[in-house]
């Protein structure tokens, strides 16, 4: 058995979720017989890691610094093995703009979009092009910060006049934002888990909002406000297609260990579109990856064991 440092918390906006994910991972690792050192990531991370001298770090961080390659870079520098995707995959996947460009170039369907930095608005007067952009994407459209992992900062703009406000909100979270075509349809999450060096798609989870208000992102993943169906009620061919697309996206971005690919099934044309790839999806009681694993008869402890094993093949 190994000494494992569980990295959690940190300063990202998803600190709250990360603490929950981390606590659950710690419990599972202890049950699996590992020696566990929980680290709430802060400025003393290097010294705490040095002191703990773990054989591996389980990265249970979400959002900035934890999911975008920063902590991974540090772990590389310190020579500590870690779970999940490598630095470059984290950078690609956590930046929705990079990820969507890569997917579009590779022929993976993703909703049409345009992305701009704050400096583009300030230095190039991009605001003048907004009417042209919205004409291309049509209303309503979704405005998102490029890197935010949670629903924070995601706004719908239903008319020209609401675009600047939506952009302003998104810019509160990142210096780069994207305007994306809104896909009205079913929300599907395909979790990917690597076993014996081979990534495979787990059963698909569908998130069905209990309330009709599709603008309410907050309620999406709360018990009692969103119903999760796993495996999603899909035509087997369509489910297989979704799994193929998700795996393609996972590999394209160079992910490893595990990830969750969020897709929309367009209600109007029946097409699948990848919204994003989360390199470190939530591992809380209500998170989707553990549900998907469970549907594949992989309990939470086994899931954690597999994620750790992918990081440390020798274990």
């Amino acid at each position, binding site marked *: 058995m190994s000494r494992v440092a569980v990295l959690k918390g940190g300063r990202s906006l998803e600190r709250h979720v990360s603490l929950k994910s981390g606590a659950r991972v710690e419990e599972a690792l202890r049950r699996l017989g590992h020696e566990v050192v929980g680290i709430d990531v802060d400025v003393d991370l290097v010294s705490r890691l040095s002191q703990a001298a773990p054989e591996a770090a389980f990265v249970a961080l979400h959002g900035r610094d934890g999911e975008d390659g920063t902590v991974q870079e540090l772990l590389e520098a310190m020579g500590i093995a870690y779970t999940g995707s490598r630095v470059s995959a984290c950078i690609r996947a956590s930046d929705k703009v990079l990820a969507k460009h890569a997917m579009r170039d590779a022929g993976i369907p993703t909703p049409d979009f345009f992305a701009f930095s704050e400096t583009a*608005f300030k230095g190039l007067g991009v*605001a003048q092009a907004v009417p042209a952009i919205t004409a291309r994407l049509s209303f309503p459209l979704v405005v998102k910060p490029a890197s935010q992992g*949670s629903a924070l900062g995601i706004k719908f703009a239903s008319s020209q006049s609401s675009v600047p*406000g939506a952009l*302003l909100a998104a810019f509160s979270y990142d210096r780069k934002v994207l305007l994306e075509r809104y896909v009205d349809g079913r929300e599907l999450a395909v979790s990917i888990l690597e076993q014996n060096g081979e990534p495979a798609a787990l059963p698909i989870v569908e998130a069905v909002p209990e309330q009709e208000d599709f603008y309410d992102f907050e*309620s999406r993943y709360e*018990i009692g406000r969103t119903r*999760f169906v796993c495996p999603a009620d899909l035509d087997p061919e369509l489910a297989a297609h979704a799994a193929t697309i998700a795996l393609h996206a996972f590999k394209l971005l160079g992910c490893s260990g595990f990830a969750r690919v969020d897709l929309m099934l367009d209600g109007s044309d029946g097409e699948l579109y990848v919204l994003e790839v989360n390199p470190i999806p939530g591992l809380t*009681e209500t998170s989707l990856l553990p549900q998907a694993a*469970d549907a594949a008869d992989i309990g939470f402890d086994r899931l954690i064991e597999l994620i750790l094993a992918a990081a440390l093949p020798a274990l």
Partner: protein
Amino acid sequence: MTAPGPRHPRSAAHEIERYAALFADRTKVMKSSAMRDLMALTAREDVISFSGGLPDTSTFAPGFFTELMSRVASESCAKALQYGPTEGLESVRERITDVMGAEGMDVDPESVLPTSGGQQAIDLVCKILLNPGDVVIAEAPTYPGAVPTFCSYEADVIQITMDRDGMQIDELEATLARLEGEGRRPKFIYTIPNFHNPGGVTMSLERRRRLIRIAAERELLIFEDNPYGLLRYEGEPLPTLYSLDNDFVIYAGTFSKILSPGVRIGWLVAPPAVRAKLVLGKGSADLCSSSLSQYFIAEYFESVDWQEYVRSLSELYRRRRDVMLDALAEHLPREATWTHPEGGLFVWATLPDYIDTTDLLARAIEERVAFVPGRAAYVDDRGGSSMRLNFSGVTEDEIREGIRRLGEVVREQVALYSTLSGQVGAPTSAAPRGTSKASCEQADASAAAPHAATPGQREVTNVLPLTRKRAG
């Protein structure tokens, strides 16, 4: 009872399904905390947080605390460690009447019910009065802590706009008439007349009288929440609603702001029939409030001039309020408005409506300053461009620095918005208010004449109704 066996790790999906089926319907209408993830970050040590509702308990001398507790231990040990009556200790009820007496209310100790903090007072009133779907009238904005309570009892909360004189009674009357037309009657009207949380305004005497008259005519209950009444920093005290007419008023008070929120003791005073139900409600909730806390309170009132301590707190908070108001005038752009509280703990600031303060909080935390986004004070989607700022729980230096940081973030947002909306040229709006005469007058108008109602003044200080005009 047998000890639980070793915990068997259950599968996530089964757990979710199992619990989802068990939850009561009312959990579905519990308002999810919009900014919960963000608020988790405001507790960071390097963040100057204006988000709490905290009194400054560091002003309480540790030696005196030790002295009081040792006296509780030596004189009332067994009783302090024991359950107590649901109705509370007689000595505490008497002290409560003293505190209410200081605000001009003449109360029989028998009619007082100590509660576990003011929050339980709100919960109990809802518990005994509300059926799902019942109408509750509250101010807009209302106390953010009351929102989840109203929602958990599945109330239909209707919020009445406030201006500098508190709840707009004309709007209340129109709402009551509309409800009557629908065959509906509110169960109670919840109001914080003094130094509103979060609004920072105080209900004028004329409106207090009108509100009482309406309640009497329509036989409606008013739920008067008065946690801050004794913390007045300027102007003359106004009579509480309870002192104007106690037939239709349920009154809530608390020791939290005049002594300690840690003792968790508040109280209710209600008409006898209502109080009897409240006692039953409290019994089922927690049997009794902490005996230890109640003995501490009794001992405290016995040993010291409590009003002197309240005066010292008021002096401290008044200075902090002034520092905050000055800092706001110096650092916020001229599009921003805020209230000038005559007491209490909060300033309510409203930014241009294109700024969503929930998103702004994310930026603000980056700059190590935090506040409560206005949405927390509404059950509907209003309040998006407002924020609550607490000045009692932060030092003067922290206030100066925190408001400077906040001002920087807001000005940056104002400038960015004008860029994003395609306005060419340097945005004039990004300039700080500085010490421009006009803005000082605006900030000072309510200080000089808090209840004057000349049309001109009303216009400039009428900051609470959130105008939804889009700039640019």
